[in-house]
């Protein structure tokens, strides 16, 4: 009936020219009778209506300005159900179906903690309707006339919040929960909020992050504190892998767009973070607990104002900043890892402060020893009794019941007035204790491959007797203390100074036992190289990092058109391995019994005790000046300067039979009595067994009269190196917004001067007695252009394109001839002084869509291409024969410049709310999905049989460390009213080459087959779940499970060089028995599922 009435009126009205006459009126909280009366007054039409019935129809707002009468009537009809009929110059009006008011209700909560906010004001814009939340944060607005509204929510100390497009329907309840962000700007003033003297803290939100990315120069991805809080992540390494194109390897290093950790540069609060690793050029992201991180931005395309030493990405980590509020929160997290905690785990008696990450002096260098860096001096003529007293007697491990992992953190915010200025403070302290224990399986060569046969080329080796299988147990007990102290002094609206201090002390007690046996068919006789060997490692690795930054930001000119930012930084990075104890045993069952006994005297000794120190200090200074010449045009110029020094030293004590000199390990050829030292050595003491280890470090075994064991200082100049790097960069960059700010052009030129110097030594052909000094001096000046174009046709769409040239410089570790022995990964790492800087040309294109109705949503699609000249790749130099490179059966790792590499990639990202799907559940659901597809090719050098690079170029495998795909997906649920957040996140990266063989797929000669193949790291499908629930007030509980699918860490030997895992299978040979063919497992262990329970309380 109503429809028919409308159709009639529509038809009739079309014939009446007076219906186009404009109507202007403005009423609030009125009724239909009043509105019709006013229209009647302004119109040429005569209106007939029943005033009483129209008076009962309430109207919250009625505002039209110069709107045609026809449209006004249609609007009123739509919102109130009013019916009307036009007949000639008369319009008959009657009230339609009775419209009943609706209700708006919900809960107002704190953004960060989901704690309810009592006393917050909720008001419907343009009306006088409003209310205040009750003591549980709930609000209810009854009797709201159906229609579209905008609600404004305010609360002292919090940012104003606006919710648009609220649809109130007749007789229905609309539920809108509101998350309030606390004051986010230092301009705000701290105000007491009634009985609560402190407020919770809000850091970066997804909406803010997306806005920043939208306006960024170049291709940027990132994650905000808001999303971090929804994940189970404990540290930056776990957080950063949620970002598009980012992968994390070894639980702490990042790979961006498939480019390995060495291609990525990390900035910590604006300063370059140092390489924290003994064996890699990489920053360990696990050093930063998630509780101190505000946001992480990944800059994937070059810009002139960023240090250009990256190809994958420059990652900017911002720790939480000082806020204009007074706040204190603390949390306790307990976690259980399958196979590691709540059980007996291997460990050893270390120092009494190990649980804090510090050594208590138990492992200190003996007072009679020269310093760790004094590698040209040795300990001589010290009685064995002094050695016994100076070093810990602990050489055996045992078990300790492992309690749950634990993290305790506290964050404190405050500010004080200092004259006209105001000082803001953030102090964050985190303590973490974690245990991870694995059973590690290692294998070289196909399972049970014959010693003689395929692979027995005549170059270098003749047999595969270096094929071994190792079963290891290892346990890491970490204790970490992080302190963040950020101070900001806001002098006025124009000038601001900051002092940011970040301190980490990470101590890791590491215990392992690794047992190796030959990988050969059963029934083959034992020969001398087929002893089973066992190595026990007791170590403590300490990493101490301090990064301090003093800086300022100054805005000058009446329109603040001059901006000056400066930053002075100092970084102290100490890594030490005090008294790393290595015990080398072999299976005595080839001799007399089943004991594991000490190996005979040798280079490493029966026992090695190593003291390693790596000290890096970085001084940096930067100035950036921006001149906003016109609102649409600005120029930026700046400089960045670094001086870095590194000192690395190792003191190497070894235990052999007594009565030798420091250098002796081999018997003189003319002395038949050497082995028993003319009858004075007690051989039973030299053959101590594993069971004797608890009593070996004693005068019984180490007698001053040299009848048993002796300690020797085997340190030589090869055990140290020093290095420095001097870096100066200057840039000029312009930003031009044109075509009504729809086109943004950015171009810049960066001049970088860098000089790396290193001084070390390596052994000559005659061992330690014939040292070769190594001096590296690599000065280089480069001009690096970059250009970015952004096209922003509207607020919702951005199209970007960019080109830039960057570099990738070698780390000192990659340049030094110094050998590192990594006992956790069974690797022997040696640098290559001939490595040069790689030059990278980067091309990027990306389209970004930001839906207007939800600021948390984004969709982007991009493509990139990179060409690298002289890429630096990690290489495996190893054969299957023991006559080349046998060292504890370790894998030999070194570095090489390949000729070139080309990388092509596609990437996409979606962040989308599922509220468009009907149903209450979907209103609180959102998805994050991102992924990259990458293809890379390399051209590499040929090698001759002596491992010397020759002039032949050949097609290589994909770039070392590069994954062909990366996928991140997350489904998140958030119900602010209940204080519930939940997330399921999935991450996978495709197989990547862990270390590249010098052999390629093209090397198919029989003599090539003894060279070990590429090591391929296989994907781990990581599925994590997390749920956070507010319990009472601001007490939150968070429960997470990581690695739900219980995935294994696996590296395989890619025997057919196809970058794909082809598991081994038995294949009958044409002339012989069936053999295992395919890719064999090289390393495998299960990290286990990880269960976390965290409580956070804000005071």
């Amino acid at each position, binding site marked *: 009936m109503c429809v028919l009435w409308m159709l009639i009126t529509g038809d009739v009205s079309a014939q009446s020219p007076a219906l186009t006459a404009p109507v202007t009126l403005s009423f609030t909280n009125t009724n239909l009778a009043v509105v019709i009366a006013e229209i009647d007054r302004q119109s040429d039409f005569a209106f007939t209506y029943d005033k009483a019935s129209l008076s009962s129809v309430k109207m919250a707002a009625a505002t039209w300005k110069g709107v045609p009468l026809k449209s006004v009537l249609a609007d009123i009809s739509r919102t109130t159900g009013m019916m009307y009929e036009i007949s000639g110059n008369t319009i008959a009006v009657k009230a339609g179906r009775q419209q009943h008011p609706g209700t708006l209700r919900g809960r107002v909560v704190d953004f960060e903690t989901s704690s309810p906010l009592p006393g917050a004001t909720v008001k419907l814009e343009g009306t006088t309707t409003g209310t205040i939340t009750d003591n549980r944060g709930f609000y209810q607005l009854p009797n709201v006339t159906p229609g579209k509204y905008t609600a404004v929510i305010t609360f002292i100390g919090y940012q104003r919040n606006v919710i648009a497009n609220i649809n109130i329907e007749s007789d229905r309840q609309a539920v809108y929960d509101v998350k309030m962000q606390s004051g986010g700007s230092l301009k705000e003033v701290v105000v007491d909020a009634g009985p609560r003297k402190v407020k919770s803290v809000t850091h970066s939100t997804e909406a803010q992050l997306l806005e920043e990315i939208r306006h960024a120069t170049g291709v940027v991805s990132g994650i905000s504190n808001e999303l971090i809080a929804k994940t189970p992540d404990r540290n930056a390494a776990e957080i950063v892998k949620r970002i598009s194109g980012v992968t994390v390897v070894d639980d702490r290093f990042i790979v961006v767009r498939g480019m390995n950790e060495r291609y990525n540069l990390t900035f910590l609060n604006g300063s370059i973070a140092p390489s924290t690793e003994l064996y890699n050029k990489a920053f360990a992201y696990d050093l930063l607990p998630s509780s101190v991180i505000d946001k992480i931005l990944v800059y994937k395309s070059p810009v002139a104002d960023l240090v250009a030493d990256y190809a994958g990405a420059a990652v900017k980590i911002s720790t939480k900043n000082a806020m204009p509020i007074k706040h204190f929160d*603390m949390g*306790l997290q307990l976690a259980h890892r399958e196979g590691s905690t709540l059980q*007996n785990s291997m*460990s*050893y*008696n270390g120092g*009494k402060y*190990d*649980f*804090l990450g510090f050594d208590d002096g138990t492992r200190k260098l003996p007072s009679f020893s020269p310093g760790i860096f004094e590698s040209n001096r040795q300990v001589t003529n010290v009685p064995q009794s002094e050695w016994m007293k100076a070093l810990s007697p602990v050489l*055996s*491990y*045992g*078990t*300790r*019941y492992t*309690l*749950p992992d*634990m993290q*305790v953190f506290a964050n404190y915010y405050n500010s004080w007035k200092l004259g006209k200025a105001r000082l803001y403070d953030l102090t964050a302290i985190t*303590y973490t*204790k974690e245990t991870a224990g694995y059973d590690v399986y290692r294998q070289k060569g196909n399972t049970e491959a014959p010693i003689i046969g395929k692979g027995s080329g005549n170059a270098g080796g003749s047999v595969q007797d270096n094929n071994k299988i190792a079963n290891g147990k290892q346990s890491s*007990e970490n*204790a970490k203390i992080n302190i963040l102290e950020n101070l900001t002094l806001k002098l006025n609206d124009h000038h601001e100074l900051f002092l940011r201090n970040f301190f980490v002390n990470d101590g890791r007690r590491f215990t392992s036992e690794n047992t190796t046996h030959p990988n050969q068919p059963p029934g083959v*006789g*034992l020969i001398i190289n087929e002893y089973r060997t066992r190595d026990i490692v007791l170590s403590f690795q300490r990493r101490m990092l301090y990064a301090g930054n003093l800086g300022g930001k100054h805005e000058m000119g009446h329109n603040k058109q001059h901006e000056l930012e400066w930053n002075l930084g100092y970084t102290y990075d100490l890594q030490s391995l005090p008294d790393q104890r290595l015990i080398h045993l072999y299976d*005595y*069952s*080839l*001799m*007399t*019994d*089943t*004991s594991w006994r000490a190996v005979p005297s040798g280079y490493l000794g029966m026992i090695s005790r190593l003291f390693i120190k790596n000290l890096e200090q970085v001084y940096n200074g930067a100035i950036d000046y921006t001149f906003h010449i016109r609102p649409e045009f600005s120029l930026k110029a700046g400089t960045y300067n670094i001086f870095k020094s590194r000192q690395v030293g190792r003191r190497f004590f070894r235990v052999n039979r007594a009565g030798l000199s420091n250098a002796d390990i081999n018997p003189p050829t003319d002395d038949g*009595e050497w*082995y*028993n030292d*003319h*009858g*004075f*050595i*007690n*051989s*039973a003491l030299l*053959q101590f*067994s594993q*069971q004797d280890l*608890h009593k070996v470090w004693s005068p019984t075994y180490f*007698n001053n*009269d040299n*009848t048993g064991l002796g300690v020797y200082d085997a340190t030589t100049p090869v055990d140290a190196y020093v290095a420095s790097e001097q870096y100066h960069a200057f840039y000029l960059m312009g930003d031009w917004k044109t075509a009504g700010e729809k086109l943004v052009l950015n171009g810049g030129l960066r001049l970088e001067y860098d000089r790396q110097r290193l001084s070390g030594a390596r052994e000559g052909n005659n061992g330690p007695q014939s040292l070769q000094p190594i001096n590296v001096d690599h000065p280089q000046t480069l001009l690096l252009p970059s250009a970015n174009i952004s096209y922003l046709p509207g607020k919702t769409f951005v199209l970007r394109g960019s080109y830039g040239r960057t570099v990738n410089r070698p780390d000192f570790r990659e340049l030094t001839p110094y050998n590192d022995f990594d006992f956790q990964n069974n690797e022997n790492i040696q640098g290559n002084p001939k490595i040069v800087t790689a030059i990278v040309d980067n091309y990027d294109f990306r389209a970004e869509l930001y839906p207007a109705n939800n600021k948390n949503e984004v969709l982007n699609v991009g493509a990139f291409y990179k060409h690298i000249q002289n890429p630096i790749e990690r290489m495996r130099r190893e054969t299957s024969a023991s006559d080349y490179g046998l060292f504890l059966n370790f894998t030999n790792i070194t570095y090489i410049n390949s000729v070139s590499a080309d990388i092509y990639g596609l990437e996409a990202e979606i962040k989308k709310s599922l509220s468009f799907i009907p149903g209450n559940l979907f209103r609180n659901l959102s998805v994050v999905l991102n992924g990259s597809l990458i293809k890379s090719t390399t051209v590499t050098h040929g090698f001759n049989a002596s491992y010397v690079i020759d002039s032949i170029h050949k097609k290589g495998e994909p770039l070392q460390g590069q994954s062909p795909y990366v996928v991140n997906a997350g489904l998140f649920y958030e119900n602010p009213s209940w204080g519930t957040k939940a997330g399921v996140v999935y991450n996978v990266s495709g197989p990547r080459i862990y270390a590249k063989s010098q052999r390629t797929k093209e090397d198919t000669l029989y003599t090539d087959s003894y060279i070990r193949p590429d090591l391929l790291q296989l994907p781990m499908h990581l599925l994590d779940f997390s749920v956070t629930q507010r*319990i*009472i007030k601001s*007490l939150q509980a968070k429960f997470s499970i990581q690695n739900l699918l219980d995935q294994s860490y696996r590296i395989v030997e890619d025997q057919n060089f196809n970058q794909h895992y082809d598991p081994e299978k038995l294949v009958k040979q044409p002339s012989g028995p069936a053999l295992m063919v395919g890719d064999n497992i090289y390393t495998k262990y299960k990290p286990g599922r990880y269960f976390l329970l965290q*409580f956070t*309380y804000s005071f």
Partner: protein
Amino acid sequence: MIAYIRKIFLSPASFFMATICLLLACNKDVTPIPDTPKGNIFFFNGSFALTGEINMPKSQTNFILMDSQDSTYHYNFYFGASKYPYFDQGYLYTYPYLKGQWPTYWQIPAGNHTFRLVDSSSSILDNTVVDLDARKPMAVVYADSCGIFRSLVAADDYSPVNGKMGLRIINMSPVDGQIFLTVNNEIQQTLPASTHMGDHTGFIPMDVSRQDTLSVKAFSVSDSSTVLGRTLLMVLPGHAYTLLMTGYSDNRSSSYVDPRTGNTVSLQSNFAITPLSNF
């Protein structure tokens, strides 16, 4: 319930208490890996008959079965060590080997063990029970007198003393009558006046101020003009040594009838003093 949760979780003291408890627990000493205590044992063949059996008419292996009567046991050295100690042409006089004058040891679980020395026809030549102490190495010395086997178990237990050495005498020689020793041509008052087969001493303290080589000679009490055997013993203060006497002298009959086989065995003089460094 809420009040309880509040009490448990909201108190900063609870946080700290939980933390401290967890931290203190981290510092406990480790529990040693459970392992059977093991002791060290050394076997010495001082038997003329056994040595003859190993060498003649063809090389053979005489096992010392431990806690076993499996006299059919044999092994292939290609695949590792024997389950049991043995004497053969490689280990003719000792198992395991001597290095210089230092014994090396076979490591086995401590406790009571029965060692059965078997001959080539699997007959048990000797049955010895040893209570092996994990803290003290032990030596089992086999000898025979005219084909009748016997053994002696000696525990090597010595605490070093500055300026002194320890000297132990073990006599497993089937020589008729008593034997005495001279050191550097002097009779040592601290040593026993004489010994005969089966006698042994503990480690007798003797003054020694520096590294020295001692000349040791053995004489029969009945004939102090004829040296039965001699050796040089290298000594250091703070260490302990054994002088082990085995073998026949000229002062005996020229043959005997083997009680096991009934064969007549010719005897040859093979008296020897073997110096052993024990600590």
